[in-house]
């Protein structure tokens, strides 16, 4: 092992698009943090800036650092000598760099270096742990910001978390990561998938290396390998009642599969339980810690927590649908030829309309429910105009995602994969920036004009992009002789 080998490790463990996306997301967070630091003089500004940059570090840990595990598995399987230590050292070196650069930048802008450094370390380690933990933890992790906010407010946590406490958290996260790493590298079947396997492994199929290659995400939705990796009790059981030529929309949903598949009520109940169980568990935990506050729990949920759940939920719904459609429209030996040659599905012109209904309505229905939840909260909480604008924009963009991309995919004009990944990454980052931070620190009132305008401007830019994409796709769809042509 020499210095050159060490420096080259990330180039071999990640793909270039991943590195670019990671760098862009972190840069965006950093620019926002520094701008905040330089334009705001409120007491919490330094901390808010550090948390926003830390959110960027989370993506670094997840997208850039966690994929080192894939290389560690490969090199161990190939019995390459001294590879493990090189990979671990390379990972530590680059993690230190990713943490140091934003910390120095923020310190130069006036923040306390030690605090910033601590928050960046915790952020990166959260991302790494997120990538290395078994996938089953994802369900719980998705609710963690709201949960932390809730606990913070409701349990009357005495003051801000201290630097010492954060280092303790970082140590625990590092320990968990190390254990997960060791377990997976030494596993008898390190490539096997399942809910007890790390999230980062999902990116392996067809992957040249690295995590979050968009193409890999598009191949994982509902294909045979993914279905085989699920335990029997979790598999969806199709309900074929009322399918056939008399009901083309329902039949198309069978053809599209994934979460659009009509399921038996038993199967649907089991899948709902998967979503609801963590929420019930969290409520139970809160109740156990402080039974007295439980009746007031729903009243106490902060506006920003609801905004975050609605925004994050809508975005996940859109992304799930887009990934599924991308995957279906990229395979030439699967559903497309089947649907293209299936007789009596409907008239050639009508089939486009039915396809749009089958693919968009389930997503839009659940997004409408989330919007209803948001609107109800707006009334109850009497949110400020600024918060309202940011929340509304996040929802509008999340809702616009699905039709825009669906038109583009069906019309044969999907954007480049890195563009899709970038847009999705920026959107998630904005949802997090606008709401998650405020749910923990209650900072919504401290948004300065520049910050608010910046976030709103980026939302509008995304919306304009989606409208352009959708119109281009719509024209393509009109020009296509039938929609079941692979891209």
């Amino acid at each position: 092992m020499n210095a050159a080998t060490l420096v080259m490790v990330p180039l071999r463990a990640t793909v270039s698009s991943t590195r670019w996306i990671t760098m862009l997301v972190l840069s965006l967070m950093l620019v926002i943090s520094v701008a905040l630091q330089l334009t705001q003089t409120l007491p919490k500004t330094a901390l808010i800036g550090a948390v926003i940059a830390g959110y960027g570090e989370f993506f670094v840990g997840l997208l850039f650092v966690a994929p080192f595990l894939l290389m560690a598995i490969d090199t161990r399987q190939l019995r390459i000598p001294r590879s493990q230590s090189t990979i671990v050292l390379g990972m530590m070196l680059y993690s230190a760099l990713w943490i140091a650069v934003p910390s120095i930048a923020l310190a130069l802008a006036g923040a306390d270096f030690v605090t910033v450094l601590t928050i960046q370390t915790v952020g990166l380690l959260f991302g790494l742990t997120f990538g290395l933990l078994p996938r089953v933890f994802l369900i719980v992790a998705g609710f963690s910001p709201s949960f932390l906010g809730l606990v913070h407010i409701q349990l009357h946590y005495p003051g801000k978390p201290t630097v010492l406490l954060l280092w303790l958290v970082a140590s625990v996260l590092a320990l968990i990561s190390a254990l997960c790493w060791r377990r997976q590298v030494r596993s008898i079947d390190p490539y096997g998938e399942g809910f007890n396997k790390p999230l980062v492994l999902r990116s392996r199929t067809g992957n040249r290396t690295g995590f979050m290659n968009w193409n890999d995400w598009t191949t994982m939705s509902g294909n045979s390998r993914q279905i085989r990796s699920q335990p029997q009790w979790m598999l969806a059981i199709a309900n074929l009642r009322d399918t056939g030529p008399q009901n083309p929309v329902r039949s198309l949903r069978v053809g599209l599969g994934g979460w659009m598949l009509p399921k038996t009520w038993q199967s649907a109940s089991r899948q709902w339980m998967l979503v609801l169980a963590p929420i019930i568990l969290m409520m139970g935990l809160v109740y156990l810690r402080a039974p007295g506050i439980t009746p007031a729990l729903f009243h106490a949920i902060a506006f920003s927590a609801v905004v975050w759940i609605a925004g994050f939920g809508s975005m996940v719904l859109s992304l799930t649908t887009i990934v599924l459609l991308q995957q279906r429209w990229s395979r030439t030996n699967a559903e497309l030829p089947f649907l293209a040659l299936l007789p009596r599905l409907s008239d050639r012109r009508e089939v486009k309309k039915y396809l749009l209904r089958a693919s968009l309505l389930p997503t839009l229905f659940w997004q409408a429910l989330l919007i209803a939840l948001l609107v109800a909260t707006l009334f109850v909480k009497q949110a400020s105009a600024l918060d309202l604008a940011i929340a509304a924009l996040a929802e509008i963009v999340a809702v616009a995602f699905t039709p825009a991309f669906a038109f583009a995919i069906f019309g044969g004009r999907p954007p480049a994969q890195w563009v899709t990944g970038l847009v999705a990454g920026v959107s998630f980052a904005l949802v997090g920036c606008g709401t998650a931070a405020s749910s923990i620190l209650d900072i919504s009132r401290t948004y300065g004009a520049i910050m608010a305008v910046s976030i709103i401007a980026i939302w509008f830019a995304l919306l304009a992009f989606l409208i352009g994409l959708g119109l281009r796709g719509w024209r393509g769809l009109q020009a296509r002789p039938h929609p079941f042509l692979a891209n």
Partner: protein
Amino acid sequence: MNAVFNAVHMETTHEPVSPLVAQGLAHCYEGSNALNGVDLTIAPGSVLGLIGRNGAGKSTLIRAMLGLLQPISGTAFVFGEPALKLSDDTKSRIAYVPQQPDALAWLTAQQMLDFVGRFYPRWDSAFAKSTLERWKIQPNRLLAKLSPGERQRVDLIRALASQPELLVLDEPAAALDPVARRELLRELALRAGEAGTTVLFSTHIVSDLERVASEVAFLHEGKILLRCGVDDTKERYARLWLPAKISAAAPSQSLSRRRNEDGSLSLIVARDANGQWPEASTLPGARIDALGLEDLFVEIAE
């Protein structure tokens, strides 16, 4: 069952148009040509084997002929209709099995066949059920959990149970064991012979062609290099070997031409309209070697 096929076939009297026609099909992927102006017509009731090396364009040609991709130029017709705008009636007359089929992995084999059967007016559910049993495929198993060979067999059942007049199979035997392959070929021969089903199938396995195809088309670098009856190949094509000293007399028209290390020349030549080999074959030292289908394929594809 054959009686059912015949009855159905007689009931559905269609104009005797070619089931599949390709006219000047051209397509390319990321700058490299997959099809270079392919013309191909398949006569009703014939069994055409499409053979070619990996990447020769077989799957692309099949997909373009069925309207599953929009070619850069050229047109394709299925039973006289533009392939990209097929009517329900035409769709119900055709069945296609892609290479390594992977559709509807979330359904069980039984569910898939039940679901698909609802769309085909002549669906033979008894055939589907009995063949599932005969081929020992568990009906309640998810398609995702079947082996590639089982998956291919389920898709073949799906295709055959719809009683198509045109059956298009892309490498149908690739994942099958020898017994299943033999059974499939027997079924194809039966369908073609007794029900008059037109079959187009691509393959690498030359012995499959010899067993079941009535015609063969060689696809090489996106072009149909030759097409003839399987039984005619030995008569029509041969290898002409010319020693170095008379290699200059080699005919300009040949299917392939290879210079050997000793300077001699090997060419694949065809008989002319009068049934004669090229003149060079009569020169002293020249030699004509009869070729089997596999040798012919290798000589052309190399």
